[in-house]
C-alpha cells in the first residue's frame, strides 16, 4: 500500500501539536542519548586532536607550533627506529599471545576436572591477575636479580649461574614474555574454562559410547566448540599485547639498547622524554591503525566461528 505524503495544511497541524508537547518530553530522546554522546566525544575528540597534532611540530619545548603537513609521518616511516618498533611489537604480541593461549588452554582443560586440587588451583591461579602489571614486573625484577633473586638461586641448583634475564639483548624478550604470561595467562584460563563448563554434555557422551579416544574427542568436539571462547581470549590478549607498555617500561624502559622498543614505548619516549609530541603521535596512531584492522578481522572471524559452533 502506498503511503500518502501529508499535505501542507496537515504538516502545520502536526507541527502545532508537536509544539504543544512539553519541552522535557520532546527533549527526552536527547537526554537519553546524552551519556553515549558525551562518551563518544570523550573518545573522539582526543582522537581527532591526535591526528591534528601529528600534522604539527607541537612540543612542550616551545610556546608555539606550526602545521608541518605529513613531515612527522614521513620522518617516522623513513626511520629505522619505526620499523624496529613494528618488529618488536609484532614479536612481543606473537610470543606472549601464542604462549598464553597454549598454556591457558592446557591449564583450563586440566582445571575442567572437578576435584579438590582443581578447586584450590582455580582460586590460586587467579592471583596474578589481581596484581598490577607494573608491580608484577617489579616483583619479577627482584626474583631475577643475580645477587638476591630466588630464580637465580633456583637456577644455581642446575649449575646455571648469572642467567642474564632482562639485562641481555638475547634474553630480554624472553623475560618480558615470561612476566606477561605470569600476569595474563589466568585471564585466558578463566575465559576458556567458562567455555568448557558451558559445553553441552550429550556430544561427549555420544563420543564416549562410540569409543572415541580422548584425542579424537578433543580434536573433533572440544576444540571446535571452544573456538568462539578462544577467539575472545585471542582478541583481548592480542590487542593488549600489541599495545603493551607497563611491563616493558618497568622492566627495561625498552632496553637493553633498543631491544624492547615497541611502538608504545617509542611513542611515549618521543613524547614525554624528548617532548616531541608532534613526532610521537604518528607512532601511537599507527599502533591504533594496526590494532583496528587486526581486531576488525578477528571479530568478523569470531562471528563466523560462533555461527559454525552453533551449527548455523
Amino acid at each position, binding site marked *: 500500500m502506498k503511503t500518502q505524503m501529508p499535505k501542507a495544511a496537515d504538516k502545520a497541524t502536526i507541527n502545532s501539536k508537536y509544539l504543544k508537547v512539553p519541552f522535557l518530553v520532546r527533549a527526552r530522546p536527547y537526554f537519553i542519548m546524552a551519556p553515549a554522546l558525551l562518551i563518544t566525544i570523550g573518545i573522539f575528540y582526543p582522537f581527532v586532536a591526535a591526528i591534528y597534532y601529528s600534522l604539527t611540530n607541537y612540543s*612542550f619545548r616551545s610556546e608555539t*607550533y606550526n602545521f608541518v603537513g605529513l613531515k612527522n609521518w614521513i620522518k617516522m616511516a623513513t626511520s629505522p627506529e619505526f620499523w624496529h618498533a613494528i618488529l618488536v611489537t609484532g614479536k612481543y604480541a606473537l610470543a606472549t599471545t601464542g604462549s598464553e593461549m597454549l598454556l591457558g588452554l592446557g591449564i583450563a582443560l586440566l582445571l575442567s576436572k572437578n576435584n579438590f586440587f582443581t578447586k584450590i588451583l582455580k582460586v590460586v591461579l587467579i592471583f596474578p591477575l589481581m596484581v598490577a602489571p607494573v608491580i608484577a614486573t617489579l616483583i619479577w625484577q627482584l626474583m631475577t636479580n643475580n645477587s638476591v633473586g630466588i630464580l637465580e638461586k633456583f637456577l644455581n641448583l642446575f649449575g646455571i649461574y648469572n642467567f642474564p634475564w632482562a639485562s*641481555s639483548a638475547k634474553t630480554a624478550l624472553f623475560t618480558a614474555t615470561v612476566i606477561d604470561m605470569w600476569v595474563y595467562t589466568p585471564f585466558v584460563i578463566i575465559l576458556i574454562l567458562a567455555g568448557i563448563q558451558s559445553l553441552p554434555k550429550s556430544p561427549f557422551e555420544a563420543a564416549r559410547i562410540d569409543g572415541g579416544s580422548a584425542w579424537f574427542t578433543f580434536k573433533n568436539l572440544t576444540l571446535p566448540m571452544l573456538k568462539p571462547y578462544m577467539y575472545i581470549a585471542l582478541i583481548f590478549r592480542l590487542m593488549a599485547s600489541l599495545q603493551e607498555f607497563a611491563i616493558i617500561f618497568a622492566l627495561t624502559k*625498552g632496553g637493553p639498547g*633498543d631491544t624492547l622498543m615497541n611502538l608504545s614505548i617509542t611513542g611515549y619516549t618521543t613524547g614525554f622524554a624528548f617532548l616531541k609530541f608532534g613526532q610521537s603521535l604518528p607512532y601511537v596512531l599507527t599502533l591504533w591503525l594496526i590494532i583496528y584492522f587486526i581486531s576488525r578481522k578477528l571479530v568478523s572471524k569470531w562471528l563466523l566461528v560462533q555461527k559454525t559452533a552453533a551449527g548455523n
Partner: protein
Amino acid sequence: MRLTFKLAVSVKIVLVMCFSLFIVSCGKKEQDVSGKQAATDEAVIQAQQAAGVNGFSWDMAKGAKIKVLLNQHMYAEAIIKKIADFTQKTGIEVDYAITPEENYFDKVTTSLNSRSGDPDIFMTGAYQIWEYGAANFIQDLTPFIEDSNLTGPDYDIADFYEGVLGACRWDLIPGHKTGAGPYWGLPLGFEIYSLAYNKKVFADRGLAVPKTMEELIEICEKLKEFDGRGTYPIAFRGSRNWATIHPGYMSTFANYGAQDFVIENCKLVSKVNSPESVKMTEDWVKLIKVGGSPSWSSYTWYQAGADLGAGKAAMLFDADINGIHQNWKGASKETGNIAWAVMPLPAGQQTLNSNLWTWALAMNKSSKNKLAAWLFMQYFTGKEYALWASLEMKSVDPARASVWENSEFKKMMSQQSGYLETFKATINGTRILFTPQPHFFETTTEWAATLQKIVAGQYDSVQQGMDELKEKMDEAVEYLKTE
C-alpha cells in the same frame, strides 16, 4: 532517510569538533606569544611593589595559598616536616603533592605546559632547567634575589657553593656553559661523584683503594665473586636512561678530556666519537664487563646503592650520597663498613672533575602567587633550614658552605669514613660537565642506549657505536643556534 539523518548528524559533530579544535589551537598560539608573557612580568612588578611599601618581612604575603609539587625524596620529607613552621612564620598556606621520581618530571612538564600557574613551586634538577627555561615555563629569580625588599638580609646567597648555585644559572643560549645568566632555581642539596667501597672487604684482602682507572680495572679482576657467587666488584647505573650517563660516566668522560658538544660555525656539534671519548668508553665498557653486575643494564641508583649495602658489591661508583644512605646506623647489612675515596682518574690526569646533580626549587612562570612562592623558596633554601635539614633529617649534601663548616655537622659526617675528605678534594672541580642545550634528555637517553648496545656487543667496535651516537646527537640539536 534514516541513513541520511545519521550521516548529517555525524558530519555536524565532526565539524563542530574540528572547529572547536581549530579555535582552541588558534587561541593557544595567540595567548602564548603575547598575553601570558606580559601578565607574568606584571606579577613580578606587583610582588616588588607590594614588598616595597614596608620592606622585607616574612608575613608580607600573609593569607596567600600556594601549591607545591615535590618529588619523593629525603629533601621533600624534610620540607614537609617544616611546612607547619613556615605557615606559622609567614601566614602562607601550603598545599603540597608528592610524586614518585619515576613519573615526577612527566607530571611537572605537563603541569607547566598547561600554564595554569599550578604548581607555584616545584622541585627540579639543573638539566630540566635547560628545557623549562627554553620553553619559558619557569620564572627568572634574579629580580627577587636582587631586590632587598623581597629577600631577607640573612639569606646570604654567597653562602651557596659556586658550582652548585651556578648549576641553576644559564643564559638560555644552547652551548653556553652554566654558572652565568639568570637564576632559574635555588638548590636544596646536591651530590658529587666518588668511589664508595667496602673497607672491610679491602682490608681483608690487603687491597689498596684504586687511584687510576687502570688500577680500578685490576682490582675488579681480584674482586670477582669476592664473597661467593652472586657478589661482584663494582656497582653503577646502567638503565636505558639519561641518569646512567650523568654520574660516574660523565665525570670520568671529562677526566679523559672528552667533551659532549663543541660549538662550530654557530652550531652545536657532538664530539662523542673523539679519540678521548672512544678511549674512555672502551675503558668504561671493560669495567662493566670485568666488574659490573650481570644485571647492570637494568640498574638505577637505587639497585646500585642497595648492592653495596647488602655486601653484594665491593665498590660503588656513583653519587656520594647514594652510599651514605647504606651507611647510617642500621641502614644496611654493611653499615659502618663503607668508606669513600675520590674517583679514579686516567693515568697522568691530575685535575679532578666531577659532574653534579642538584635538587633545586623553581618557580612556575605562570604562578599567580609569586610573592608567597618566593618566600617559600627563600625559607626552604635559607641557612637556618639547611642546617636543620642536614642535622635532623640527614639531608645531605647541603648546598650551603656554612653547613659544612658547622661543628655538629662535621661531627656527624666524620663518622662516615673518608666522606668529608673526599668532598673537600672534589668540590672545587665540581660543576655541570654537560653542554647545556634543551635536548639534553634525548641526547643522553640515546647515549645510554648506545652504551648498552656496545656492552651487548651489537657494534663491531666502540668507535662504530659512538659514530652512530654522534649522528643521532647532531640530528637532535641541528636546528639550535648558539648565538
